[in-house]
């Protein structure tokens, strides 16, 4: 509750305590957010996307700077090993993150007309975290790739979007 000048306690010590307590609550709120969004939430988001089907590690590479100095625009390239022919191609690529406010980053739809399974974009990273990409092949199998990045200037919290 904000204190107006009129209802300040007469004792300056009590007033100072109130101010300190309010400050403590703010710090706790700021710290709580990244801790709540943890690896389990990432697993749940991926399971919701894949419908619980088995995802094999491999064939998917995420190209991103391992040390990011500005989280507001991080260039990311996702590559999938695939011949990209009618019989065997990548249908979809989904990119997830571990510690942004939302787990989803982007989803891409490709076809054999793509000719190559490579997609690039620029993303926001709120803090140091893991990125996971899931590729859906034309035969329905799922492959995943992951990478850990360290972010020194976070997006979403400070600076312009």
């Amino acid at each position, binding site marked *: 509750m904000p204190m107006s000048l009129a209802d300040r306690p007469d004792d300056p010590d009590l007033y100072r305590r109130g101010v300190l307590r309010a400050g403590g609550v703010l710090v706790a709120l700021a710290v709580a957010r990244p801790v709540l969004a943890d690896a389990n939430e990432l697993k749940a988001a991926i399971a919701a996307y894949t419908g619980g089907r088995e995802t094999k590690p491999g064939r998917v590479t995420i190209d991103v700077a391992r040390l990011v100095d500005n989280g507001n625009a991080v260039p990311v390239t996702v590559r999938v090993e695939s011949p990209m022919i009618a019989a065997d191609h990548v249908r979809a690529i989904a990119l997830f993150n571990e510690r942004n406010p939302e787990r989803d980053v982007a989803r891409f739809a490709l076809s054999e007309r793509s000719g190559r399974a490579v997609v690039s974009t620029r993303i926001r990273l709120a803090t140091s975290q893991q990125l996971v990409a899931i590729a859906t092949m034309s035969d329905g199998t799922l492959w995943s790739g992951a990478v850990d990045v360290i972010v020194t200037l976070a997006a*979403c919290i400070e600076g312009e979007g």
Partner: protein
Amino acid sequence: MARALITVPQDAKRGDVVEIRVLIAHPMETGFRVGADGRRVPRDILRRFTCRLDGEVVFAAELFPAVSANPYLAFPLRADRAGTLSFTWEGDGGFAQTETATLNVA
């Protein structure tokens, strides 16, 4: 109309895989930031991007708030035939914009 930059290679030979790059001016406001008045800035993002070659969808993307402002996308396309490429962005608040470019195949 938001400013859009579209790069389509013009020297593709039949069967080559070309990289198409698109960028559109858009704030991609996440809905998580707090403005100067202490209130949350409402979400305003582009949610969908579609690239069509003569009406046939050749690439599509679903975007979330984690995509940077002025969304940039680079994606491949096998140049089997020449045609007109159309690029459509759709987003919050009824945002919709379509740009076109020509794909030349030698």
